[in-house]
């Protein structure tokens, strides 16, 4: 598939979740055989899975993305061996399953009992207990317009 026009390599090709492995398979067949990265973004209503593949002979890249709402998406690890580790990390960080992954063990995290850390709904404990420095009220705004005396509402 051709690069989106005028994209400077950064435009994202959006595909349906069900067409994920087909799209990556097509790109692989076109020569984009090197996986740069595969990761996720929590878009609140869905998890966006983003991957960038590169053609090593031209160093051209394509960024593909899809939205996952059903909790799982096809694994591309059989086509792009590097995706093996990228998908394992994305799975534990966002709570997504990659169907057909040859080795779906956690990559970096120990206990699966804690919530996926990169979901926006997972509260960072240190953030929850510390006071936001921006909440300090620096009282410098006058509560009254210029020239109005303090007792303007009181009867004289």
């Amino acid at each position: 598939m051709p690069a989106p026009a005028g994209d400077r390599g950064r435009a994202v090709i959006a595909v349906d979740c069900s067409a994920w492995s087909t799209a990556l398979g097509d790109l692989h067949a076109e020569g984009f055989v090197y996986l740069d990265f595969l990761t996720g973004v929590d878009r609140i209503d869905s998890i966006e899975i983003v991957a960038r593949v590169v053609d090593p002979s031209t160093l051209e890249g394509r960024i593909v993305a899809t939205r996952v709402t059903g909790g799982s998406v096809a694994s591309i690890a059989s086509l792009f061996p590097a995706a093996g580790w990228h998908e394992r990390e994305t799975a534990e960080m966002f709570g997504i399953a990659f169907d057909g992954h040859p080795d779906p063990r956690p990559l970096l995290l120990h206990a699966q009992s804690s919530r996926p850390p990169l979901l926006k709904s997972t509260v960072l404990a240190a953030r929850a207990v510390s006071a936001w420095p921006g909440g300090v009220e620096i009282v410098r705004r006058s509560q009254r317009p210029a020239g109005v005396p303090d007792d303007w509402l009181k009867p004289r």
Partner: protein
Amino acid sequence: MTPHGVIALIPAACTSCMLCVRECPSWCITLDSHTESIDEPGARRPRTVSVLDGFTIDYGLCMYCGICVDVCPFDALEWLGQHDYPEADRSALVHDLDRLSAWLD
């Protein structure tokens, strides 16, 4: 391309608007100030100025994203190229007003 090392403060330019404190994603900046009234001869009313009492950046939390430098409307924060300020104690990585303004002396 500006050198991304330590972030320095120009106290004379700071108006205590708190934008850097609020926009910092690491919550690593704190700011203390008070206001003073200055009588201007011939003016209808006194002029109010903000006086900066304290400004700290915790370089143990800072991720050098530069949002504070970008957002300051008065260019009071500046990138410098210095990287050499190691400490044996994490609390010593909290740079106060004097230390932050000394970079530009």
